């Protein structure tokens, strides 16, 4: 069955989408349920993430509507988002998140 998009945005708040197939450099990125116009700045491998908008350094990377890490440098829209430009949260940042849950 033919499907009309090549990347999946999992939550309306997300700033990344997941490539449903390999997306070549300069290819159009077609997002499910979205009119957003985007071109891949570089190759995005199958299952990897692409920036839906420019993400500035130290901003959250949001997937599933949740913070999955921080940008280690500015990530232009259409870039491959992975270990070269994202880090996980450090102990202090984790503690803040967890303590926030238990606040009255």
């Amino acid at each position, binding site marked *: 069955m033919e*499907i009309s998009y090549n990347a999946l945005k999992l939550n309306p708040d997300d700033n990344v989408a997941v490539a449903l197939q390999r997306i070549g450099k300069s290819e159009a990125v077609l997002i499910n349920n979205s009119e957003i116009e985007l071109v891949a700045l570089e190759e995005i491998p199958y299952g990897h993430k692409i920036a839906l908008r420019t993400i500035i350094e130290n901003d959250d990377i949001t997937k*599933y509507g*949740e913070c999955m*890490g921080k940008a280690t440098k500015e990530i232009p829209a259409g870039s491959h988002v992975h270990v070269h430009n994202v880090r996980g949260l450090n102990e202090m940042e984790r503690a803040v998140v*967890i303590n926030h*849950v*238990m606040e009255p």
Partner: protein
Amino acid sequence: MTKFNGYRRSDGSVGVRNHVIVINTVGELSALARKIASLVPGVIPVIHHGGVAQFPEDYVQTLRTLIGTAGHPNVSAALVLGEEDDEIAKAIAVKLKEKNKPVRTICLNNNQTIPGLLKEGKEWLENALVKSKREIRQECDITELIVGLECGGSDAWSGITANPSIGTFSDMIVKEGGTSVLAETTEAIGAEHILASNAINREVGREFLDIVRNYDYRIKQTGEDIRSANPTPGNMAGGLTTLEEKSLGCIKKGGSTPLKEVISYADRPSEKGFVFMDTPGYDVESVCGLAAGGAQVVLFSTGKGSPTGSPIVPVIKIGTNPKVYEIMSEHIDINAGKIIDQNKNITDIGTEIFDKVIDVSNGEQTAAENQLNQEFAIWRLAESI
């Protein structure tokens, strides 16, 4: 309310299988237990390598797991193979007799030859098997079902296809009054705040954060850091970038229902609803704990085609991507990869899983059962003495 046909036991529990098993109490007896089981076709060997030279915390956990396994509602009768004056065998027999579950203990001792022991075991098993065939399925409510939620061999699609579909199933069964048990504490590290904030009250949220913190602490005590080991190089090649991302995908199996209870490894939920069991990320030990805690069926998502099954509970495999389903269909029951290439959505696959759970509870064999995948290992906490 959804119904299924199961085996109603005298203690009120309901099984979806009617196994006659042989279970060994200590690792030394594993080959002999397997041999006794092989004498009677249809009998299932439940073999492990623990039970001896253990610290008290492991002794208690092993005993709880063996009692939960031999006394499981999917088990019609159990032959327990022990050593002379075997405390574990005695304890299992006492607990099973309390439930009126047919149990026989045979212990290696100086008064009986091996051929004599094999003959005694064979005769008891043949008789137990004949009796088990007379038991018939009866109509039961879905509220009697406890379904374990597990993953193994995750990939970048696990959190997008199979796990959220399992989450949809979890919400469905809990809504109908049944129980789902999410497991794998290590796989929640990095996303524990989400499950905690979704707990039914602060106390349950706190208990959940405590088991995650304790696990994290025990890993650090060994000099390792879960954050440097996860995601694995294989996870990263597949597109997973951070531990948080991997864990956010894992906990999708829990759906959106509030977390009602946090239980120890191999413990039985005391309430119906959505429950978390403290288990390791190693899938064989985790499935073993879920089963020993009373889950009659386990759902298991896999991106890499993990064959893990169980000797006593049907394990339903859900492939996360079209390729794993195509190349390993012998291992996999449901293709959640249809979300990637066939315009299916999470609700479609969640409903497919729900229907499959009912079919399997009615007796339909899973891929793992057809392959005789009967892995069994008890979570070991400390060193051998």
